C-alpha cells in the first residue's frame, strides 16, 4: 500500500527481451507504491544460473520455461508463486527495402500464414534465414519446432544463420544481410526496416510464455516476501497487462 512507511527494495532478474515493457511497469510500480526496484536484465540462462548460485534476486522473469523448470526442481522458487505473465508469437520477417523508411506497413503485402510444406528456401533467394540459436535460445527453439511441424526444417536447416539472441537475428534481416528471419512479434513490430511476411499456424510450436516467480530465500524478511508477491500480482494486473500489450506481448490465458 502507498501508505507503507518504507517499502523494501526488490531485485528482479528478468530476460532482456522484456526490458522495455518491464521498465514501464517498474515506473508504474514505483509511482504506485514508492517501492524501489532494481532490474537486472540478461539472458535467461545466465540469470537462472546466478539464482542457483545464490544471487540476491527476489523475483525472476524468464523468457524460457525450461530454466524456470530447473529452478523449480531445485526448490529455489517460492511455492505457488510461479505464473505466466506474458506470451509472445513467432513471425517470419522480411527485409523491407529502403523504399519506406517510415515503417508504414500500409504498402506491405499482408502476412501469409505459413502452410505445411511451404517452400521457405525459395523465398530466401539464395540468402539465409536468420534465427536465434535453434537448440539453445528460446526463440530459436520455438522456431525450429515450428518449421519441423510444418515439415520444412530438414530442407531449411542448411540455410539457417543462427545468432546468440533473437535481436541479433532481427538485426540481420533489418540490415538486409538476411532476406528472412524468424523472430518474436514483439521484436518485429517496432522495427521499421522489416515487415512481417508470415505467421505460424496455431500449435506449430509450444506456446511462448514468460513465467515469473518469487525466488525462495530463507533469509528474506517477510516484508520483502510480501512485496515480491505483491509485485507478481501487479505484473498480472491491468496496468502491467496494458504495458505488455503496448509492447506487442500476448497475454497469458
Amino acid at each position, binding site marked *: 500500500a502507498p501508505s507503507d512507511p518504507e517499502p523494501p527494495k526488490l531485485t528482479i532478474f528478468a530476460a532482456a*527481451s522484456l526490458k522495455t515493457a518491464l521498465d514501464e511497469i517498474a515506473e508504474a510500480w514505483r509511482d504506485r507504491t514508492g517501492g524501489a526496484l*532494481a532490474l537486472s536484465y540478461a539472458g535467461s540462462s545466465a540469470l537462472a544460473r546466478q539464482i542457483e548460485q545464490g544471487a*540476491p*534476486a527476489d523475483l525472476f522473469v524468464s523468457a524460457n520455461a525450461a530454466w524456470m523448470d530447473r529452478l523449480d526442481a531445485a526448490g529455489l522458487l517460492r511455492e505457488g508463486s510461479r505464473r505466466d505473465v506474458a506470451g509472445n508469437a513467432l513471425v517470419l520477417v522480411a527485409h523491407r527495402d529502403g523504399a519506406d523508411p517510415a515503417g508504414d506497413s500500409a504498402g506491405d503485402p499482408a502476412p501469409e500464414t505459413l502452410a505445411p510444406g511451404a517452400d521457405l528456401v525459395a523465398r530466401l533467394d539464395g540468402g539465409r534465414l536468420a534465427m536465434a540459436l535453434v537448440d539453445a535460445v528460446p526463440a530459436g527453439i520455438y522456431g525450429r519446432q515450428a518449421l519441423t511441424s510444418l515439415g520444412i526444417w530438414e530442407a531449411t536447416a542448411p540455410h539457417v544463420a543462427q545468432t546468440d539472441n533473437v535481436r541479433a537475428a532481427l538485426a540481420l534481416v533489418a540490415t538486409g544481410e538476411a532476406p528472412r528471419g524468424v523472430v518474436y512479434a*514483439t*521484436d518485429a513490430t517496432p522495427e521499421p526496416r522489416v515487415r512481417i511476411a508470415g505467421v505460424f499456424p496455431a500449435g506449430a510450436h509450444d506456446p511462448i510464455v514468460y513465467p515469473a516467480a518469487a525466488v525462495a530465500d530463507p533469509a528474506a524478511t517477510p516484508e520483502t516476501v510480501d512485496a515480491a508477491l505483491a509485485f507478481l500480482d501487479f505484473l498480472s494486473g491491468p496496468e502491467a497487462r496494458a504495458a505488455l500489450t503496448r509492447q506487442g506481448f500476448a497475454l497469458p490465458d
Partner: protein
Amino acid sequence: MQDGGVWLDPATREALALSLKVALWSTLCALPPAVGVALLLARVRFPGRALLNGVVHLPLVLPPVATGYLLLMLFGRRGPVGGWLEETFGLVLAFRWTGAALAAAVMAFPLMVRAIRLAIEAVDPKLEAAAATLGAPRWAVFGLVTLPLILPGVLAGAVLGFARAMGEFGATITFVSSIPGETRTLPAAIYALLQSPGGEDAALVLVAISVAVSMAALLVSEALASRVARRIGAG
C-alpha cells in the same frame, strides 16, 4: 530519458560512474600481480611455468561467457572460493561491483601480463647487474632500475587493461548479473538496450560515452608514456 539529454539521465550516469570505478579498481588491483606474474614468466624458469602461462591466457581463449560461468562457479556465494572468502574475510564478490571488478581484472590480466612481460624482456640485464655491483639488493634493483625502465610497458598494460575493463561485458554479466548501481556497467547497459526494441539509439549514445572516456584515458596514457620515454631515451 526525459528532456535534458542522456547527460542528465541518472541511470546512464550511474552506469558510467560504475564502469569507471570498476575499470579503475580492476586495473589498479590487477597491475601489481600482473607485474609479478610477468616477472616470473620472463625471468624465472620453474616447473609449472608453462601451466601458469596457460592459465594467465585462459580468459583470452575462452568465450567471455564461459569465463563468467567459471567465475560464478568458483567465486559465487556457493562456490568454493567465494564461500571461503565470505567466511574468512567477509568479502563478497558475487553480485557486487567488486565481483564486476574481479571479472574485468581477470579478462584484462593476460593483456597486462603480456605488455609488461615484453617490457621486462627488453630490459638490459647488464644494467641490473651494474645496480647489483653497486650494492643494491634484489628489491632495490627492481624498484630503482627494472621498474622505471619497464614503466612504458606497465603503462601500456594498464591502458590495455583499462580499455578492456571498460568494454568487458560477457564475463561480468554472466558472473555478477546486471544490477543497476551495483553491477550494471556501461556495456551491460548497452547490451540491455540492444536487446529491447527501439533501444539502438540510446545504445549508440552509451557507446559514444564509452568511446569518449576510453579515448581520454588513451590520450592521458600516451602523454604519460611519451614523457617516460623521453626520460629514458635521449634524456
